[in-house]
């Protein structure tokens, strides 16, 4: 019968319309920004640098090896290595980045820097509300903006951070069995 297809289509629309008042899976939208969905554990946005202890300057895990700078596909990381060495959180003298900039406006959130970093020093953040009023260098983040504590890392990626801490602790225990009690950052976080 001509018109029957149209009518049965309209019945579906009506069912969806009324159903949206009663069924959760017919109305899936949330009213952002008042309502927010929790982001999944693996969610990634832009990279940040992890530091241990409370000191963002001294506790930085990054040793300025520049691997991430080399591997970053759009080349948005810029690192200047220090001339001197500083004791890191394991009291081992290491180089540190004098300048560590990431141009967030160029970064494409690909996570390759995180994958290639051998020191677990750079991780992905979950902050996505980053709009700025200036056009040029407002999204060029320096070391001070990028550095975030390991506690914060645990908050945003609990499972992943626990695994990383366990790996670091195991590596430290293998290297210097004498000071392993001091060298496990995971024990108190």
């Amino acid at each position, binding site marked *: 019968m001509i018109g029957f297809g149209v009518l049965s289509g309209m019945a579906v*629309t009506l069912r969806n319309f009324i159903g949206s008042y009663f069924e959760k899976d017919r109305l899936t939208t949330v009213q952002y920004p008042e309502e927010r969905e929790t982001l999944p554990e693996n969610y990634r946005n832009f990279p940040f640098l992890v530091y241990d202890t409370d000191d963002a300057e001294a506790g930085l895990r990054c040793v300025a090896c520049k691997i991430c700078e080399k591997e970053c596909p759009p080349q948005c990381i810029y690192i200047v290595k220090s001339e001197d060495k500083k004791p890191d959180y394991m009291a081992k003298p290491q180089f540190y980045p004098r300048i560590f900039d990431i141009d967030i406006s160029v970064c494409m959130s690909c996570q390759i820097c995180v*994958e290639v970093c051998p020191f677990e020093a750079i991780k992905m953040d979950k902050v996505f509300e980053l709009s700025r009023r200036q056009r040029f260098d407002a999204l060029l983040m320096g070391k001070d903006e990028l550095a975030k504590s390991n506690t914060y890392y645990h908050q945003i990626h609990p499972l992943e951070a626990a695994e990383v801490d366990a790996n670091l602790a195991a590596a430290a225990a293998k290297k210097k069995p004498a000071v392993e009690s001091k060298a496990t950052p995971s024990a108190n976080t």
Partner: protein
Amino acid sequence: MSATSFYELEQAPPPMTSRIEGELLEVSLGPQHPSTHGVFRMNAALDGEIVVKLKPVFGYLHRNHEKIGENASYLGSMPYTDRLDYFCSMTNNWAYALSVEKLAGLEVPERAEYLRVILAELTRLQNHASLLGFLLSDMGAWGTPLMYAFREREKILDLFESLSGSRMMCDYMRFGGCRVDPSPEWLQRAKKIVEAFPKFLDEFEKLLIKNEILIARTQGVGRLSAELAINAGITGPMLRACGVNYDLRKVDGYGFYPRFKFRVPLGDHGDTYDRLMMRALEMRESLGILKQAFEQIPAGPVMNPKVKIRAFKPPAGEAYGRIEGPKGELGFYLISDGSANPYRYRVRPPSFINLTILEDLCLGHTVADVMVILGSVDIVMGEVDR
């Protein structure tokens, strides 16, 4: 004699408007047009309302993808492939990973192969669902079917997000496996979504597939003959809508597809209606594949531990890896000279090649049909222009 200025060239009438019949009208559809699926332009010459000539113009979104690929490391190209066909980043990843694996002769663990099948079929589901939505909104069913399709697509994108970290730019696969191992909860959730999907398909079919207006707009419109399709290198659902049984999942049997039982839906007339139904039927088959994959997926590693993804240098040689993407044959052709970046990196984009016959499909139809035909070709400009 002075050279013709650019301005003069602009002023000169394009050859298309030469008034042979005296009444031809040139209409430029796009690049800013809601139905062109991106920045795509069609220069149509109309005789009344009938299209007598149509010239596709593209390149507005050209990003030098292939040249970037030649200057990036093998690992560094992976996130760029997400940005080709941004609806189907998982299948793009797979095609690229497959060609690098062929180039270097890498093995992929069993679990990773199953995961790839699962993710590729989920991608096919969401691509076809949103294509149907877009196609129907091109036909005037503005919004409603598209929103229903997007509601389902969003569930699958949420799955991708909780697995890979991003809804659309997944960057999930690596040569030699996959990046993260999904948790059992993730697999459960995916299974649940797949089990609920037929309900959406039934509803969607009831909503519009039998609709008289839709049938009048699509049946017999944009007919593509099997010979032309084969000669022009058309692949994917568009080719199968003409009745040519060619599905790389069967022909090549890449990945673990030979282990799955599924049928390849075939069309008969090659018109827009067949192309539309092809998508609906393929989704049903994908659901079958997914169900089998969830039953069979083994435990184990997802990454071949021997593969060094950083500073990866395959031996010199060349390889072509291709898969049956949701839009057609997606292939990556790589030539390696033994260094850390490919000497040549070439993409065979299905939407671009499927678009080449647009004029043949549109001739003799009205302007309003052009939009419907274009919608049924299923293009994404990121892939067409690269």
